[in-house]
């Protein structure tokens, strides 16, 4: 019988699901809303559809991310720190430093030569270094979020953004805009300020090659450029940076199952039932 492992990552902004077997992966991504439980079901259902599988065929399910406790059908939960590390080390065995830029969190993770986590840092008390910062600024400048990175690359003279508070930075950007500063320059400045903030935190881990940036922030080429320049390290980005946490979660499940089979210990799993979802 083929084994399938599912990982579901409920982040503050996006919910991601990955189904893994020996060969490939099927993934699905949707925005996280206030009803996390319902969304976990929906995303799981869609991932199953994409993988042409039925729910009972899934051997093990691991939930991760900030909403990990809101996945009623998961067999186990791990933090996104453990799961991102697992997913990234799977994709980049040479990884030593991981920077995950999420919607509300930024995390730095240090990995040793055997792929184990040896230290981590996380932003606390304030989400100013996270994806939310870019969202607010993109909104102020009326630039679609997915164009923010590209537009910033056109800048020849990045402006200086001195405020680290998202709300005040928004005001600063708005007033620079009214003074005629080009949007590309403002965006480049925003990325530099964000990179500066992220690096200040991650540097506590003593950054070593290879550096992998993941999470939604990794899709922003402007931010990657700023990070790479300021870090003085080459930065690698996974093909699909949004799903590395969910991938890691699925891999954690795979390890648990393999270990249980090896030791001949029983595997504790939940019943494979998705609650009925009302369609409004």
């Amino acid at each position, binding site marked *: 019988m083929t084994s399938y492992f599912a990982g579901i990552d409920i982040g503050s902004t996006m919910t991601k699901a990955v189904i893994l077997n020996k060969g490939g992966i099927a993934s699905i991504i949707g925005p996280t809303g206030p009803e996390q439980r319902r969304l976990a079901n929906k995303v799981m259902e869609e991932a199953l559809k994409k993988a042409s599988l039925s729910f009972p065929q899934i051997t093990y399910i691991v939930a991760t991310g*900030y909403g990990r406790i809101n996945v009623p059908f998961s067999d186990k939960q*791990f*933090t*996104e*720190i*453990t799961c991102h590390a697992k997913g990234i080390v799977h994709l980049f065995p040479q990884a030593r430093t991981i920077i995950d830029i999420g919607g509300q969190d930024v995390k730095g993770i240090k990995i040793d030569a055997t792929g*184990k*986590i*040896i*230290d*981590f840092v*996380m932003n*606390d*008390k304030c989400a100013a270094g996270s994806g939310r910062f870019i969202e607010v600024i993109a909104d102020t400048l009326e630039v679609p979020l997915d164009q923010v990175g590209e537009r910033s690359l056109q800048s020849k003279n990045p402006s200086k953004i001195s405020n680290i508070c998202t709300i005040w930075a928004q005001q600063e950007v708005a007033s620079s805009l009214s003074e005629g500063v080009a949007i590309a320059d403002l965006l480049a400045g925003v990325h530099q300020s964000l990179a500066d903030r992220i690096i200040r935190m991650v540097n506590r881990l003593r950054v070593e090659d290879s550096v992998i940036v993941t999470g939604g922030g990794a899709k922003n080429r402007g931010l990657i450029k700023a990070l790479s320049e300021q870090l003085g390290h080459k930065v690698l980005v996974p093909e699909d940076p949004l799903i590395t946490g969910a991938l890691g979660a699925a891999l954690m499940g795979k390890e648990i199952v393999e270990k249980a089979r090896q030791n001949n210990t029983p595997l504790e799993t939940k019943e494979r039932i998705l609650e009925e979802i009302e369609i409004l």
Partner: protein
Amino acid sequence: MIDKENNIFDTVKNYYNDYGFRAKDLKREGKKFIGYVCSFVPLEIITASGSLPFRVRGNIHEPITKGDTLLETIVCPYYRSVFDLSVKGEYDFLSGLVIPHGCDSMVRSFSAWSYGLPFSYFHFVNIPSVCDESSFEFFDAELDAFRKSLGKFTGKAITEEHLRQAIRAYNENRDKVRALYELRKADPPLISGTELTMTLTAGSSLPIEESNDLFDQVLTEVKGRGKSPLKKGPRIFIDGACLDNIELIKLVEELGGNVVADTICNGARDHFPKTDVGGDPIHALAHRYLDKINCPKTYRANRAGTFEGDIANRFGDVGTYAREFRVDGAILYVYKYCDPFGFEVPARKAYYQSLNLPLLHLEDIYSAGTISQLRTRVQAFLEMIGQ
């Protein structure tokens, strides 16, 4: 009084949750309570005066409101919370308040306390910042002045015999705490960190005799368990200041760790050092409070001449506890704006590295609102240790 019908931990929870209810009862019987903060107020002198010491606490579930109109927010959130509860009338049953020079916030805010609260007695204990010969000479005199000032307030001249009696009662209390900590050495420990810290916190709201009685009952209850009710898990050490709200320890234990030792003020820092008996009691108290309490507030000169030797001297207690309680990982928990601990973080981190002990450094704001953020960090740390 303590209800012997119930499980003793129900009594502990009552004292912990309805903090101060016993003091209110005793006040109605005519007893005087003197509030204090920090590890540096000699409780023996308060007890010897015939009044009763009461440790004022903060509350992470209560937003800081009124206090912030009288105290600037440059003060650490723990101390602001304690002040906020006090100006909101939570501790109005107290007759007086004693504040030591435990950190700069305590010095600078002393006048705010004395203007903002309705007590009839206020006293500031000046603690030397260093531990030299002259410091002890000064501190002897300072404690003697405190003895006289408090004696004048209570109308009772505090004699050496009164002090000796109080010293005996507190040393007894510290022996009991040590015995409670011994029960943490088993794997899994016989007593959870939540139970233990809650018990010690409850004890700081009681007269010393009642605290001794409470600890005895907890000891009997826990020893009677035979087998630990806990599951094996990473053995966690908590390093930090006063953790008078149980949530962090509870969180670690909910996530599968066992808190087995600490340096916290309402833990080993306050309760392990004993006072020498036999000599001059004031001098013995001065020695206990100034030298035996290992708090970053006190500057200890680098006698080793090297950085490695210096951190080993300053934080050696951590290494001793880590070995004694077979610790797997440590959490250094520091309040934002805590100057004594804040300045020490890099050196403490280096010390943990020298012990090869995994460390999670948390900076927090003394608010229940950060629990879910802490949950991710603590869980990830436990996962990291368990790899």
